[in-house]
């Protein structure tokens, strides 16, 4: 992680020196996640994860590894195994059935302030002679049980890289290659924990957290992936279509270093979207289905991007798709409305 960090700093510095005018939106956590502060849930009930990918055997890892990250954010997390035993005793053995229970009912049974839905919607594996990687994409949705409102949503992306360690040089290469031949296994528990951890850390802290309510003023700086110009929201072409390269993941940008790494997605395009074969994911929350583009943030169910220190809400079809337009090779979205943020943008 340390190495990753220093590389990041170096690259950023190098980039700033080149003087390209990309803007950063600074936003306080209170502005970014207003509903969490408005509702202030103390306790979270995590529902069984839904897996819409081809990997069926990893699903439970995600459910069991999220307790610690959420508790460390300061929330009371209902004990997962006891919750499962309770559902079982009520003949609710199918995870899908559990996810269909209305949140109001869950409030009655558990007295949970909020319910967390976790969707596993990307699962990609890549292999070479020397390495293997597993990539996973998650969507989180936190729903207030009193009102049924979604108060927080987030996407996270994690990958495991096993095998040849690119930082070991040639001698390491030979040693690693031998080691790799023996074992390139990915520890799903570690991968799931890494993904859950980065996803949870975006959530404002709960009542037991040291920064409870104080983190409201904490600033988050997010590199704009869109530009607001002449009443239109422009994005680069790859935001629309990705870089259409043939073949499976490995992704373009990653550290060839053994281990487990994760990122909140937050509109960052660092994967050039290679890892995502589709941008749209269907989430089912409190019995309702939503089609969502995972590179947008959602507030009250409406999609927006940060640009020039504003929340720019874009027009979405009733089925959830977000249409784009093209003009002279430039791509843009239709703006629905704009919310100015108190925090001033920084260029």
């Amino acid at each position, binding site marked *: 992680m340390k190495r*990753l*960090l220093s590389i*990041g*700093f170096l*690259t*950023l510095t190098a*980039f700033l020196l*080149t003087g*390209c005018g*990309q803007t*950063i939106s600074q936003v306080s956590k209170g502005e970014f996640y207003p509903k969490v502060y408005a509702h202030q849930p*103390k*306790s979270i009930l995590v529902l069984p994860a839904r897996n819409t990918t081809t990997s069926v055997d990893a699903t*439970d890892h995600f*459910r*069991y*590894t999220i*307790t*610690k990250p959420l*508790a*460390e954010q*300061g929330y*009371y*997390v*209902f*004990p*997962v*195994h*006891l919750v499962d*035993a*309770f559902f079982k*005793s009520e003949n609710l053995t199918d995870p899908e059935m559990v996810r269909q229970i209305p949140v109001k009912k869950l409030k009655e*049974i*558990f*007295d*949970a302030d909020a319910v967390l839905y976790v969707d596993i919607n990307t699962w990609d594996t890549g292999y070479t002679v020397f390495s293997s990687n597993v990539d996973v994409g998650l969507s989180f949705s936190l729903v207030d049980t009193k009102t049924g409102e979604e108060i927080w949503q987030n996407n996270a992306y994690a990958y495991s890289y096993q095998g040849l360690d690119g930082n070991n040089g040639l001698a390491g290469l030979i040693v690693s290659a031998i080691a790799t031949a023996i074992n390139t296994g990915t520890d799903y*528990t570690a991968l*799931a*924990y890494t993904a859950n951890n980065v996803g949870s*850390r975006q959530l404002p802290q709960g009542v*037991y*957290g*040291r*920064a409870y309510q104080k983190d409201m003023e*904490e*600033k*988050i*700086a*997010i*590199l704009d992936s869109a530009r607001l110009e002449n009443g239109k929201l422009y994005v*680069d072409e*790859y935001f629309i279509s990705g870089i259409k390269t043939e073949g499976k993941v490995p992704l*373009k*940008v990653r550290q060839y270093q053994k281990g487990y790494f994760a990122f*909140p997605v*937050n509109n*960052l*395009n*660092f994967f*050039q979207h290679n890892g995502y074969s589709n941008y749209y994911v269907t989430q089912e929350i409190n019995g309702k289905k939503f089609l969502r583009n995972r590179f947008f943030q959602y507030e009250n169910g409406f999609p927006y991007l940060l640009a020039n220190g504003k929340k720019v809400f874009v027009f979405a079809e009733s089925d959830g798709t977000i249409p784009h337009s093209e003009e002279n090779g430039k791509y843009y979205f239709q703006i629905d409305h704009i919310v100015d943020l108190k925090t001033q943008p920084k260029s």
Partner: protein
Amino acid sequence: MIHVKHVIVSLSAALLLAGCANTPQPPLYSWGDYVKSSTRYGMDGHNKEVLEQHSAELKKIIDESEMNKQKVAPGIYAEYGQILYETGKKEDAKRYFMLEQTTYPESAIFMSQIMKKLYGEG
């Protein structure tokens, strides 16, 4: 090339966020090897060895937290109670269900439901 740059900068921005906005804080609770142990128990809890290992891990976490005068993490007492109950130590189990309830009032209603189910009382 410009794309790659965007990509890398976004990455560094994300790292800057992670690195600077919050100076790393010590964890709120002791967890021992909970993540692994709990996952193994969840996937293979019928295996006696797995169950015993998880039980021992939970006990260790409770002892460690109490020794460090730390609050025991959410759910740990309840989960330990659950395993005690499963292994026939029903009265010990009850003590831990109640500990969960008093340590975390958020769990009060759920724990009463559980105790009602298991012991037929409120």
